[in-house]
């Protein structure tokens, strides 16, 4: 069926069954491949996008339910200054500065979640980071640098 979505500020129309997870609409239909598939049951966070500015796992959000929502993916998250764009740019820069990624496959999701952490906690404690990031799995165990990068981004945002 015809599904109308707003993705990265643009109206998009796709033809999929309404139970298609948003993740597959984003990847297979819209060819926005920065958002990744890792588990399909919201246990790994690789599919994290922003829905109305909040991190959500797109693998369990059916396309039918995603209509009338503002969806932002990693590719465009900096553009919307209201919805975390400022945090996004600083976080991406911190990620690069500390060479956080190894295989990199989980990192789009990590960054989208990290934006949510900093929006909610501009000066996050390690507990804030644990609570906000524990839904994002990293098999390369880049966790030490993820934590450092979030703290670094917080410092830069404060300055």
């Amino acid at each position, binding site marked *: 069926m015809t599904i109308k979505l707003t993705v990265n500020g643009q109206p998009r129309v796709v033809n*999929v*069954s309404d139970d*298609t*997870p948003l993740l*597959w609409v984003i*990847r*297979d*239909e819209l*060819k926005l*491949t*920065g*958002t*990744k*598939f*890792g*588990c*399909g*049951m919201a*246990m*790994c966070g*690789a599919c994290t996008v922003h829905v109305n500015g909040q991190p959500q796992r797109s693998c369990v959000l059916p396309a039918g339910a995603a209509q009338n929502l503002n969806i932002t*993916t*990693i*590719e465009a998250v900096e553009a919307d200054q209201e919805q975390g764009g400022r945090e996004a740019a600083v976080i*991406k820069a911190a*990620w*690069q500065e500390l*060479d*956080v*990624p*190894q*295989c*990199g*496959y*989980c*990192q*789009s999701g990590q*960054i989208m979640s990290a934006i949510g952490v900093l929006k909610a906690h501009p000066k996050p404690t390690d507990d804030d*980071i*644990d*609570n906000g*990031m*524990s*839904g*994002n*799995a*990293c*098999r*390369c*165990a*880049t*966790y*030490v*640098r*993820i*934590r450092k990068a979030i703290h670094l981004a917080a410092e830069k945002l404060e300055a």
Partner: protein
Amino acid sequence: MLQSQSLVSTQEEASETGLSRRHFLKGSVAGIVISMTLPMAGMKQALAAGNTQTDANAFVRIAADNTVTVLIKHIEFGQGTFTGLATLVAEELDADWSQIRAEHAPANVKLYANLFFGLQGTGGSSSIANSYQTMRQAGAKAKQILLQAAAAKWNVPMSSLKVKNGVIFGANGKRAQFGELVELAATLPVPKAEPVLKSPEQFTLIGTDVPKLDSPAKSSGQANYTQDVFKDNMVVAVIARPPAFGAKVKAVNADAALASPGVEAVKTIDAGVVVYANSTFNAIKGRRALQVEWDYSNAETRSSTELFRDFNAKLATPGKTASTRGSVAKAASSALNTVEFEFNFPYLAHAPMEPLDAVIQLHRESQNKKVTAWFGSQIPTTDQAAIAKVFGITPEQVDIQTQLAGGSFGLRAQQDSGLAIEAAQATKAFANQPGKAETPVKLVYTREDDIQGGRYRPMSVHKMKGYLGENGALLGWEHDIAIQSIVANSAFSGLIQNGIDATSVEGAHNQPYSVPNLDVRLHDMITGVPVLWWRSVGHTHTGYAVETVIDVLLQRAEQDPIAGRLALLKAHPREAGVLKALDRLQQQAGPVPAGRARGIAMVKSFGSYVAQMAEVSKGSDGKPQVHKIWCTVDCGLVVNRNVVTAQIEGGIGYGLDAILHGEVTLGEGGKVEQSNFHNYTIMRINEMPDIQVELVKSAEAPSGVGEIGTPPVGPAVANAWRRLTGELVTTLPFDKALEKDVS
């Protein structure tokens, strides 16, 4: 992964043929390609055809736009091969780091073999070690070519020129960037003289922390993996595999699957039943509607409980000797104390974040078949041959476009090319339909396919005995291991020497502690469960066993865990070196906080030496909480400290995750009981300890890094836990061992 077997290196070939002819790309982007290993025969053929484009790709491509692209013969899946190998080139080339790019080399064993393996492949933590000289020589030769061009352009001797940060400087303010010289360089013959490589004091890039080449793309969602490959008219395929390993398809009812939205076909291949659809979700949904009857007559139907029972029973029978010295019988009879141990290690999944996937397309150009395969091929030579065999063509007709991979940990280095064959068969089956000959097929694994798909770290049972004399002196040591061979009946069966699969006993048969009487025996097990190397392979279990036992025996002898080990390592200076460095860190760390304990472990693997200290407390759930790991590493000369440190951090995290949680179990009928991350528990950020890494300064040749952080962490944590609680954990994971304690 694999221990080294040095074969004739392609470097030797190059120096024999000499490079005396011109090599350049005609008519394309004006760039020069530096060939290190063009065999004479191939060159003659290329020139005879009047074709100045060599068939031999190379390691360094310099373009007129001043970018220097390094062709990387080892797949990048997070361990830093792109950055590491490019650094070696950039150093000797005297390039500016900002002009360096990296891309995967094509599959071509003549040019891109792993010099330790004799075929093109990544593993055994060998990428830097085997490439160290080759890549430096490639960079140095490229510099010679540019210097020659500048000398010709300015009519000055080459010796009068200097190079720095991608610019060549001559007298009287003359200067030229690399890109400006490429067109002229391409017309000149390649200089014959072997360039002199830099000495370590001259390094400006090697040994520093150059930023990783792939960090920008991976920090912005721009990095592309196999999952992100899309081709026109592509279909997506998923495979319904048997619920027990070795079961075969008996009957298929595809009616409901074919009626499912977007499903285009259903075909049976060796691995199971393939459902093809116009999108990933439609393929997954279509597979749910598939009805398959399985034939279990050759299936592995034992449960884990039954398997452990069988492994245990085998240990009571004679095994094959992996190593022996002195007389264990004499040690046993003169011992004042005998301490016995039994260890049970489970199957482990690799579970990389990107599940296995591959895109394969058959091209038919006027009856000339060609296949392109896009995937994270870790052993291109054997994958290429396997794909070729499926299509009935030659390996040269298979073009592997290696992709960045979302983790491997060994999973993508398949000794049987299983994924490549599945993808090739799936593509061939679809392409056999009328009008579908050139349809690209993307095979994807769901997470369930991944967790349940076999290719596990093998399960094993170890039995050990320590024979102690006066004051706890270690008189004798017996170690029996029951485990399935990883390489038997595969392209890598050469690793079996005298009936012993080296990957089954590494770290045990050559344990470094001086004990005069020793017997290590292997008991080969056969199961229908497919097994594979998993980050640090044999060391994942032998490291735990050896380091737990030595720690227990030293404790019984009232020896300090570091001093006691050092006393038994007099013949092993590098092992001793990392322990001494760790001792200094322990002193700096000060007294152990209340409620915590520290544990030590040291494992040599892949040519490198690692010692770790874990600080552990007991959590409110009765399980270990690991606060910090101190780690000292001797991996020879370090190319990039930041990358090495990241690999150690990652290896520690990967190993800790497995020790605490990792377990694949088979239930009744041999069905895997885990399926996704809700029941295959993995470590999250809240469980990651602080990590402090010290890289011991060394002028030795670079040795392995990718896997070496993993083996010591399990025993370090276990030794800390035992000192904290008195509890010796010999059944892994800790979640299982401590189940009974959790209220």
